[in-house]
């Protein structure tokens, strides 16, 4: 009827920037954490199974 679309006339901050905020910051978060996980030398002590080739230790 006459005034039912009251909200749509004035989109608020979340309508205008919500998608951009969500997408941008999630990318930032994932990028930084991938860097942390792989590049800076943190030892995650992953299992040697399938990953490490055993080397003879008895000299």
């Amino acid at each position: 009827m006459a005034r039912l679309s009251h909200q749509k006339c004035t989109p608020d901050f979340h309508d205008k920037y919500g998608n951009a905020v969500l997408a941008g910051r999630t990318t930032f978060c994932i990028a930084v954490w991938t860097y942390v996980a792989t590049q800076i030398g943190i030892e995650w002590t992953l299992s040697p199974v399938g990953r490490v080739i055993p080397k003879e230790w008895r000299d």
Partner: protein
Amino acid sequence: MLATRVFSLVGKRAISTSVCVRAHGSVVKSEDYALPSYMDRRDYPLPDVAHVRHLSASQKALKEKEKASWSSLSVDEKVELYRIQFKESFAEMNRGSNEWKTVVGAAMFFIGITAILIILEKRYVYGPLPHTFDKEWVAMQTKRMLDLKVNPVDGLDSKWDYDKKVWKK
């Protein structure tokens, strides 16, 4: 007389109220927050007061027309009466919003800041890793664990094929 009797029963506040009554005439002014207020709530569908309290001239005329038969009101007039009485319809009141996107975005941002803090921590705070984490050492350590038959049932040793000398697929 009446004032002192009320005072003895109720307390000092009654004295000041009755003083105000004598000072201002017959009307005692209340604060806005003490009066019944309007609210848009699903669980309180008919609020205590109308939304529009000070009617314009045309609105007052409409209110007069409302006292007659309602079939004489047009659709627009009915909507106008509704809007005088209520601020938002139930549909407007219950509408969802996109606020969650901003909230989740802000949370992700601060989690990202945490990652930056960890980078700084690793760079400036932590000392070097012990030598037992070198690739060569870990390889020799793994071979020794296999020679010692560590966890042969379900663990490390069960994953190693001793005949072919490779990890089991």
